[in-house]
């Protein structure tokens, strides 16, 4: 016995081929829906700056309009199914008359209106972000960010009176102050994207781009390379930290100093290993013979929150593992495995690097 009346809607939906395939698509979709609530770290809907707020508004408009369109579509679908019960064989082919109105209005005109409105909104939005505008030339960029496979080089250009220095993967900015970044790349195309602060801007070989970011709240904002750039593209993250002005000035001052001289016996030994080993071929610690430029500047590595382009927490365990077996943590990274050090040498180096604050 069937629990539904013969022509009840669920039964008809289920018994039609179309209904079945639709349910197959829709149910997994519904199961995935709660996942959408999980993204808080890198979300456009979590804006914290003027540019990002505009993008967030646009995003909401798109979401709402698309939800309305989807709901209307489904209601029409259910209505059509309820209106004409029975199998396809019982009905005349659908192209024997009528219905053109649906195609013209529903399929062409209404989408045209909605998409045109969004397009116009998008153009207006883009105009309010002078990304490479000559009128910016009177305000030179504050920070140069260079994309590498797969990390970010960050050069502070000495905004008007500040110090000049190089760091990596962590960008500090003063809160509530627009900061202009110049975006370049050392190899392939990357894309700079910190969703809470702004949209995406590509880093293109031989063509500097600019982006102006501003954070309205102190805090750390995670970003991500958003143009596929090779094997570890997904692990090319960055962190923008907005500091209150006094804290920002203090950070600038510390960061422009040369690397701290080691104080403990382990760190002293670690420095000897570090500067005499292959490390210095790629890495710089200002104030020491280590002056390589292929990898991130490590002058203040001890004060950074993460390692490997903001992938792993910066602690003794991950730093030791990163030095000896980087390829197990980020396969393909330019940092090679360095398995020739004894455990003691390794930990001495960790002690040295961790005190570089």
């Amino acid at each position, binding site marked *: *016995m*069937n629990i539904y009346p013969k022509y009840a809607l669920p039964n008809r939906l*289920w018994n039609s081929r179309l209904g*079945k395939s639709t*349910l197959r698509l829709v*149910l997994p979709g519904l*199961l995935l829906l709660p996942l959408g609530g999980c993204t808080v770290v890198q979300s456009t809907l979590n804006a914290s700056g003027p540019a990002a707020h505009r993008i967030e508004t646009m995003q909401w408009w798109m979401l709402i309009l698309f939800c309305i369109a989807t709901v209307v579509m489904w209601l029409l679908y259910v209505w059509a199914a309820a209106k004409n019960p029975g199998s396809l064989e019982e009905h005349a082919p659908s192209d024997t008359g009528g219905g053109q109105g649906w195609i013209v209005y529903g399929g062409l005109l209404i989408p045209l209106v909605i998409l045109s409105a969004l397009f116009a909104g998008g153009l207006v939005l883009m105009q309010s972000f002078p990304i490479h505008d000559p009128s910016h030339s009177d305000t030179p960029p504050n920070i140069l960010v260079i994309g590498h496979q797969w990390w970010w080089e960050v050069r502070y250009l000495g905004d008007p009176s500040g110090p000049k220095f190089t760091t990596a993967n962590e960008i500090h900015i003063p809160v509530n102050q627009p900061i202009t970044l110049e975006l370049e790349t050392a190899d392939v195309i990357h894309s700079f994207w910190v969703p809470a602060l702004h949209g995406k801007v590509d880093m293109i070989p031989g063509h500097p781009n600019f982006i102006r970011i501003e954070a309205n709240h102190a805090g750390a904002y995670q970003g991500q390379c958003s143009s596929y750039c090779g094997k570890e593209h997904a692990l090319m993250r960055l962190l923008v930290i907005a500091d209150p002005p006094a804290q920002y000035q203090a950070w600038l001052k510390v960061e422009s100093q040369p690397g701290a001289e080691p104080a403990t016996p382990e760190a002293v030994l670690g420095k000897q290993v570090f500067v005499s080993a292959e490390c210095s071929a790629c890495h710089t610690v200002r104030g020491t013979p280590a002056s390589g430029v292929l990898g991130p500047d490590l002058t203040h590595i001890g004060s950074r929150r993460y390692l490997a382009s903001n992938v*792993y*927490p910066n*602690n*003794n*365990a*991950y730093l*030791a*593992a*990163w030095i*000896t*077996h980087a390829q*197990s*943590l980020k396969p393909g990274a330019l940092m090679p495995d360095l398995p020739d050090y*004894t*455990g*003691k040498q*390794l*930990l001495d180096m*960790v002690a040295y690097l961790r005190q570089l604050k």
Partner: protein
Amino acid sequence: MKTPKGLVRWALLLVAGAASMVTAGCGVAPGPSIVRDGNAQVGKKLIVSYGCGACHTVPGIYTARGLVGPPLSFYSRRTMIAGELPNVPDNLVRWLMNPPAIEPETAMPDLGLSEEQARDIAAYLYTLH
């Protein structure tokens, strides 16, 4: 009564999905630990936050897939710690708190664990039977 086959398959899929969601919420089964005052559930979180998985593969912890040091599978059944100490709770706690103090040439760093934290981590490791 004829049940549509597809419907049964769907029901099974939904039940399986729901079941996997429930089990995903499960941590370590609570219960008295072999380690005095050790809390295996807290230990599991500490293993993640201190980055043990940078070097060790630790069963039950997805992010702990390190290939630098030995895997910690079947830890409760192992007889030696670092190849030199009998594997008993007090030794493991001592080792976790400061490995170089016991084995000066080890690459395992002093993570600055308190005794309580070391006990919690040891408690987790002894759940790996």
